[in-house]
Each structure stands twice: as C-alpha cells, then as structure tokens.
C-alpha cells in the first residue's frame, strides 16, 4: 500500500479517537476528500519541479505511534533554548509531554491544540480562526487538516504579551521504524499583542521521520509576532512546513528560517496582508552539505495599499546538497504604494551542489516599489587573499567569509541567546573555530 492509500484508510481509525460531532470534524472530512482526490504533489507541478516526494512515499511510515513514550529532560535539554526562561509546548512522537512542557493560562493561553479543539471555552476562537487562512485545496495542507488534533495553541488577547518566549518542540524517539507526524498549530495575536515563538523538530535517532506541519498565524491590528524556525534535524528526518500568516493593519510579523539539518525540507511560507501599513519580513539562512535538500517557497500577497515586505535569504551549499528558492510576490491592483523587497544570495562551495532560485512577481498595481535580486557565486578571491595576508589560514578565512555572508540575516533576531546559538551552529557547520566569541 502506498503512503496516500495508507493515510486515507487510516482516517477511519483516526475518527475513533476524535469527537466526530465537533464542527471541526466537518472541516477534517472535507480535507481528507481533497487529499484523496489530489494525492501527493508530483514534480509535474510547477511548484514541485525541483523537490520530489517520491522517495518518501515509498517509506512505510507509522501514522500513529503504537505507544506513548517519555524522555528524560537531560536527554533533550540541549535542544531547548535553556539559557533563557521560556514557555514550552513539547511533543514526543506527536503526543503532548506535560512533564517537559511549561504552559500557561495566566492572561494568555499557551497550551494545546487538543484542548482548544475539545473544550467549550476555546470554541469561539476556534470558530473564528481555525483553518481560516490555511489553504483548502493544497493537498499537503489538507492532509494535515484532515488529521488535525494536536499541536500548539497560542492565544494572546488584546494588549497582552507573554512574559517569555514560547518554544514549540517536537521530538521523535525512534521507537517506530519510521514515523509520520502532522502537528497543527494555531497562533492568534489580538490587537496590540506581542509574542516570540521558537519552533524546532528534532529526531533523536536515525530512524526515518516525516513531518507535515501546518501553522496558522493571525496578527491583528498593531500586533507583533516573531517566529523562529530552527531546522537542524537529523539527516533522516524530513519536513514539509506549511505556514500561513494573516496580517491586519500595522501589524509586524517576522519569520526567520534557519535550515541546517534534515534530509528533505520544504518550507511553504505564505503571507497575506489584509490591511494597511503592514510589515512582513522573511529571513533565512541555509547551510547544507551531504545530500541534503531544502526548498524555500515564499508567497507574499499584497492585498491592500501602503504595505511592505522584506525577504532576505542566504544559502551556502556544499557537497551534493541542493537548494531551491522560489519567491512569489503578488501585488493586487488596489495595493498602491507597496514596497516589496526580495533578495536571495547563494554560495556554492562544491561543484556538485546546486541551487535553483527564481523570483515570481505578479504586479497589478502601478505605483509600487519592487526590487528583487538573486546571486549565485563562489567566495570572493580578493577577500580571501586579504584575510590570508593577515595570517588567517585559507580554511578559517573561507569560514569567516561564509559566516559573514550568513551573519547579517541574524541582525534582526531579537532574542540574543538564540542569536548566539544560531551563530554557534553556523560556525560549527562551517567546521572551524573562529578567533572570537560569537
């Protein structure tokens, strides 16, 4: 049985464990129909031209883990941003781990999707927001919707701000030979609310994992949301991330995506600007080696006038790794005075590595500022000589230049401890010691 059939037939078993009377279940039923009709995307589709899911569909993934597993904090502490105090929503093989988590209902709700989908007190929020911005026809998103049951639920009411950053962590223990996970997150920041989220998927063994995640983010008027995706997973873990962001007037949403690990990673990052004076920022650092593959597909839909979007993605590709950057910007006819910037710079450090980069602009308004640029290059030889002439050996000089190349994307990271963590991962990835503290 291939993966699609297995998923479709698992839906009945799934229904035994959820409340089929709940209105959300109608959404799930619709969604599984869509997935059944469309199946997994193939390379024939333009949006999937450079990323093949064929290999993954041959794996006999468990759809539900057979047993509930636990982890000791000391086994996984290093994956938390433990230098600072954070709220934590932690899942082990897809199941919530109360022991590793720290949730709250103190003025804000930082808790579980499973609770939000079942408890009456959250019904109103679910009615208004759940599956409202996520695509209803993109097959992988609908697949996630069909199986939506668990994940993070974050609700920040008007004028509120959680006391500390929020970490969402997904661990897989390897107790299954291969496991598929489908977390579903909902994040709502009401008017003037502000929050910071760090998300991480981490497989703890070399058993195969496939995660198909959907996150919906709603930023109301003046809300500020910082979302950091730390993708430094094992080389046997694959991730399809579908993030949908709806912004209202004067809201500011920044998504940073740090892609260092994993086997196959697909980031579908979609911004919808439903208001004026909105700021949307997407930044990414990708450093790959081996046979790793990362595909960044971004979309910014400028629906109203006077908004901005900024995209800055940097990639360093070594060995046999492959990368994709496809940045789509749509500016509707009424969205005058839009400022849309997009930049994608890449360095190939191996002859066998490759990157496909493509801006996709659909501009229907006439009074807009749009700029985009993509570069693919090697390291600057004159810069290398300059560093070497000061006594910095070739290998370290290369690393320093690559570090510097990736580094400016980190300037907008607002959690200093996270910034130095990422800096360290970058230095480690580049395989050298830098002569200064990061």
């Amino acid at each position, binding site marked *: 049985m291939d993966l699609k059939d297995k998923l479709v037939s698992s839906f009945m078993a799934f229904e035994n464990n959820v409340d089929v009377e709940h209105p959300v279940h109608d959404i799930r039923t619709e969604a599984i129909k869509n997935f059944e009709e469309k199946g997994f995307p193939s390379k024939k589709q333009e949006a999937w031209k450079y990323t093949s899911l064929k290999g993954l569909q041959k794996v006999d993934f468990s759809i539900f883990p057979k047993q509930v597993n636990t982890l000791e904090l000391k086994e996984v502490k290093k994956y938390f941003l433990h230098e600072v105090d954070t709220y934590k929503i932690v899942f082990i093989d897809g199941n919530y781990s109360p022991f590793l988590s720290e949730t709250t209902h103190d003025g804000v709700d930082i808790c579980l999707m499973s609770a939000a989908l079942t408890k009456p007190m959250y019904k109103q929020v679910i009615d208004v927001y759940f599956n409202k911005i996520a695509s209803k026809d993109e097959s992988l998103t609908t697949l996630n919707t069909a199986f939506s049951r668990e994940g993070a639920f974050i609700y920040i009411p008007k004028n509120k701000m959680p006391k500390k950053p929020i970490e969402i962590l997904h661990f897989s223990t390897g107790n299954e030979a291969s496991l598929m996970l489908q977390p579903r997150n909902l994040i709502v920041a009401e008017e003037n609310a502000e929050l910071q989220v760090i998300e991480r998927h981490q497989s703890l063994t070399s058993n195969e994992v496939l995660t198909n995640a959907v996150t919906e983010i709603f930023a109301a008027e003046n809300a500020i949301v910082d979302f950091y995706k730390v993708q430094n997973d094992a080389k046997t873990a694959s991730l399809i991330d579908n993030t949908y962001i709806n912004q209202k007037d004067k809201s500011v949403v920044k998504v940073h995506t740090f892609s260092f690990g994993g086997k196959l990673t697909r980031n579908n990052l979609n911004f919808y600007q439903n208001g004026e004076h909105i700021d949307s920022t997407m930044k990414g650092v990708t450093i790959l080696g081996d046979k790793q593959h990362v595909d960044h597909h971004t979309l910014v839909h400028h629906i109203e006038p006077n908004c901005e979007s900024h995209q800055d993605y940097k990639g360093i590709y070594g060995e046999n790794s492959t990368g994709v950057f496809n940045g789509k910007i749509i500016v509707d006819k009424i969205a005058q005075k839009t400022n849309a910037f997009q930049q994608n710079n890449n360095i190939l450090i191996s002859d066998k590595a490759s990157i496909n980069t493509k801006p996709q602009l659909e501009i229907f308004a006439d009074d807009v500022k749009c700029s985009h640029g993509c570069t693919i290059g090697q390291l*600057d*030889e*004159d*810069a290398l*000589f*300059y*560093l*070497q*002439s*000061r*006594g*910095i*050996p*070739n290998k*370290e*000089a290369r690393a*320093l*230049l690559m*570090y*510097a*190349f*990736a*580094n*400016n994307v980190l300037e907008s990271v607002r959690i200093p401890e996270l910034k130095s963590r990422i800096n360290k991962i970058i230095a480690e990835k580049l395989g050298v010691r*830098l*002569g*200064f503290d990061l």
Partner: protein
Amino acid sequence: MLKINNLHAGVEGNEILKGIDLEVNAGEVHAIMGPNGSGKSTLAAVIAGKEEFEVTEGNVLLNGEDLEDAAPEERAHKGIFLSFQYPVEIPGVSVTNFMKTAINETRKAKGLEDMPANEMLKLIREKSELLEIDRKFLSRSLNEGFSGGEKKRNEIFQMAMLEPQLAILDETDSGLDIDALRIVANGVNKLKSKNNAVIVITHYQRLLEYIVPDFVHVLHEGKIVKSGDKELAHELEDKGYDWIKQEAAV
C-alpha cells in the same frame, strides 16, 4: 631580510614583472615609485603570496628562505605585511573580531595560546590611540562604507596590531588628508626599528618627507630601471618619468 632575484611573474602568460632584483635589509626604508601600470602593486602582491600571479622565473627570499611554496597566511606568520592599495570590504566581520582572529591565528601558527581577552583589549586600545582611531569605528564591519582615507588608516592600524618584520605600504598616502597623512606616517615611524623594514610604494614625494627612505627605486614596465637615494624622489617630482623612460629605452 628580503632578497628578490631576477623575479618574473604574470597572469595567464602575460608577463608583468620582468626581472626584478631588490635587497632590503633590516632597519631600511625603501621607496618604490613608477608610472601607473608599471607593476608596483603586482610586486607587492607577489611578495605577499597572491596565487593569482604566477612566478615564472627567479625567487623571493625572506631571511634566506625561499617563499615559493608559502601560502599568504604563512608569509604573514613569517612577518610580511601588505597594506593594500584597495583594501577589501568584508561586510559582517567587525574590525575588532577580524583583528582578534588574525592575531590568534598567527599565535596559533607559532604554537602559542590565544591572547588573553584583557591583553587583546589593551593592545587594541593602545594601537587605536596611536592612529587616533575612534573606538566606535572598531565595531563596524571591516572597510564597509569606510571612506578612502579611513580604509588606509585602518590598514596601518592592522599593521600596528600585527607588528610585522617587513611592511609593504602600497599607496597608503592616496586618499589621506594632510592631517591623516601625518598621523599615519607618525604611526609607521613609531613602529620602525632596526629590526624591521618598510617598502613604501607611492607616487608622491609628500609621504617621503615623513617616512624618509634610504633608497628610492623606479619601476618601469616590470623592471627596476633606476635606484638612488631620497634625492631621486625629488627629481621625479620635478621632472616626471619621461627622462627615465628615455634612459631605459637606450
């Protein structure tokens, strides 16, 4: 200290240096002058080990040791320093972090431990004061957006930090205003001792009033066509290069 014998070098079969002989001893200051395109920067880059240039004949010896196989960083570790005519901009690396890396890598090559942080800070403070460099400057990205003069001053700051045995200053005076020229020249003179040497590449007499050369050489079409004392620089300032070119043609 430095001995260059019949050096021929070029790029892709195109010969730029066509048989250079030069000897520089400890304690000496040599000036190299010459028309645009005569090969001054190429000579400097070849001494510093830029691999883009291929040495086809002759050699460069430092303290008797042939540098042929030495990488640029190894030459730096042996005490060669090049102040670039066009310093490269490196966005994302601060001047301070760059210097820390350079110093600690040089120490590592010599089997020494990293310089303790407080010692490093002290050194940076001392040398930036010598060159009257604002501390704010040091946290900026290396050369990025620096004015022409700031870049040159920063080069000499690096020289002061690294204390080389042989410093080659390639048109360090160009881009410096009159006050900056004095500060930079003063910095170079303070670092000067009987154990080190300086090669000053310049088009103008002005810098040589501050950093007084023991020898002046004229490079023309890849060859040293004339050598003399500091008077030669005066003569060139007055008369230009035509007479030398004519002499060379004979």
